[in-house]
């Protein structure tokens, strides 16, 4: 590849894209064809090289018994926990044949057939710690990690079993890459120590058990967690707040990274030129794929999405097989050394 692919696996369910394919909430969560059309719309209209079926991270919780608030039909939040005791956590063996899980799998199937494998299908799957937080109550779970660690482990372990089953079904249905999202595990909510004990082992287990490439996503400040993320067995890390160059430095060549266009201000309100420039900056700082920091907001203009795609296409990346580029890279390394990058520390996040 001579350019960085504009393969953004965060949801891009903007107003214009939804109008374009005739999609609406809540039907897009429940109708496989509408979900497929909407997932592929960023590709068809803007040239974004990823289709992302499943638009929310409450689906898993709903399957496991939680109630959702469907008055917010675009991303229905979980209204409350479903379990007090992790021993009770249970789900239907054939959960993937009905309700919303079946819709997602059917949408993946439709996309796989429609594009004959040409368009990468990257569904989101909520990761174990976040799922456990939904079904037990987030604050409850976090408290349990201190007060009753065994119980916390049991809950997260059960969630992991579920995630593995669901993930495997997604791969069987034709997904190319999985996108486990673990927002509750972010550095804004838990400390690196908690992460190491309660999140990392389950990422590892999930990564080993599901045999498709995986992009781990965590919103917020994940600076201090990077050394642990590196050990997760996930193939790529999709990040939000940390600077791209810092993520690259921390991950070295051991893990690829994806990010990070701000979705609070830049994507919805910025100009196309600003998006273009920021995309170029991310590429220069060394991301493997440029993507948005989180799901794109409803009002994000098409022009900005297109600017992001165009910047990916226009910005050349050095070719490791080219001697000239290697020598230039050596020059870049010298300059980095001069800037004292090896000793750079970042303070970010609550912990």
């Amino acid at each position, binding site marked *: 590849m001579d350019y960085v692919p504009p393969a953004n696996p965060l949801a891009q369910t903007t107003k214009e894209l939804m109008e374009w394919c005739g999609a609406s909430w809540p039907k897009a969560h429940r109708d496989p064809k509408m979900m497929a059309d909407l997932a592929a719309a960023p590709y068809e209209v803007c040239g974004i090289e990823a289709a992302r079926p499943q638009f929310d991270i409450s689906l898993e919780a709903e399957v496991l018994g939680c109630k959702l608030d469907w008055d917010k039909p675009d991303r229905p939040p979980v209204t409350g926990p479903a379990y007090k005791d992790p021993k009770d956590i249970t789900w239907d063996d054939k959960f993937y044949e009905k309700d919303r899980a079946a819709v997602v799998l059917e949408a993946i199937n439709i996309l796989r057939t429609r594009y004959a494998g040409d368009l990468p299908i990257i569904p989101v799957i909520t990761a174990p710690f976040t799922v456990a937080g939904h079904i037990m109550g987030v604050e409850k779970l976090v408290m349990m990690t201190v007060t009753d660690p065994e119980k916390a482990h049991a809950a997260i372990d059960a969630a992991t079993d579920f995630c593995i089953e669901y993930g495997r079904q997604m791969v069987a249905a034709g997904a190319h890459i999985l996108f486990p999202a673990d927002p509750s595990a972010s550095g804004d909510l838990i400390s690196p120590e908690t992460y190491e004990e309660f999140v990392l082992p389950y990422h590892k287990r999930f990564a080993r058990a599901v045999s498709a490439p995986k992009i781990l996503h965590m919103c917020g400040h994940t600076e201090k967690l990077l050394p642990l993320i590196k050990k997760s067995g996930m193939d790529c890390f999709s990040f939000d707040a940390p600077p791209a160059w810092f993520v690259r430095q921390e991950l070295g060549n051991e893990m690829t990274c994806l990010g990070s266009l701000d979705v609070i201000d830049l994507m919805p309100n910025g100009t196309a030129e600003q998006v273009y420039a920021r995309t170029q900056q991310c590429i220069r700082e060394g991301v493997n794929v440029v993507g948005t920091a989180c799901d794109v907001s409803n009002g994000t203009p098409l022009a900005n999405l297109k600017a992001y795609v165009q910047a990916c296409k226009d910005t050349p990346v050095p070719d490791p097989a080219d001697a*000239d580029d290697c020598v*230039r890279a050596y*020059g*870049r390394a010298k300059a980095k050394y001069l800037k004292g990058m090896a000793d750079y520390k970042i303070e970010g996040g609550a912990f």
Partner: protein
Amino acid sequence: MQMDIVMQQVEKMRLEDPVRFNRLVQEGMAIELGIISPGDKKSKSAEKLKEEFFPNDAAYREIAQAVLDGKRAVVEPKVKEQIKAGKDPVDIVTNALMPGITVQCEMYDLGMSFVPEILMSNDAMQAGIKICQDTIGEVPSKGVIASFVAAGDLHDIGKNICAAILRANGYTVIDIGRDVPKEKVLEIVKKNDVKLVCGSTLMSTTKPGLVDTSLLLELEKTGVSVACGGAAVSKAFVDTFTNSVYTKSPLETVHTAAKIMEGKKWNELRT
């Protein structure tokens, strides 16, 4: 990827071309520090070509750049200046004007520049050449070629591109223009030391003009043949009459011109 393979090339460069090695290291540092941005393909090609073809003399370089930029209004005064300064007009043509069009044609071949650039550079170069010719008369070249568009036809983009590329390759081109009757071509051939005529046409109704011109030149024993091209012209068509050769592209015209200058005749050039 086998890292040692590329590292071998790096080591080779470091030992055999240390100037280049250091320049690339500096480039990398400058990019990282944000002083320069990694160049795009087009400016990289232009830079490489200029290194290869452009003269070292600063004033000549300016002229070459002005031809490359297609800036006739800059070329003219600068050429006049150089002549006033006592420079040999032949030298100016060969080492200041020509490099500009050569680089432009190379860029065109690479798909980095397009028809508008060729036409503008051609125009700028011609203006410079005219000034030199006014000073000393003939400017020596690889040979004189006359170029025209057949009687009744006004489409001349093809002729102009061909003329530009022939000039870039060192030939003097007399552009007779468009809608040119055969008698006019004969007149130009007789008055000048023309070695080859290039004729083109876009319309099928005006194809006979090429036939008539070729035959007239033969009849009058000028010894000059017509290289025929243009959208309406095909090899099979050109094979149906004498004193002519089919040239599909400007590049083929250049090759044909070279062979003619060596002394080959039109029938020897027919495949």
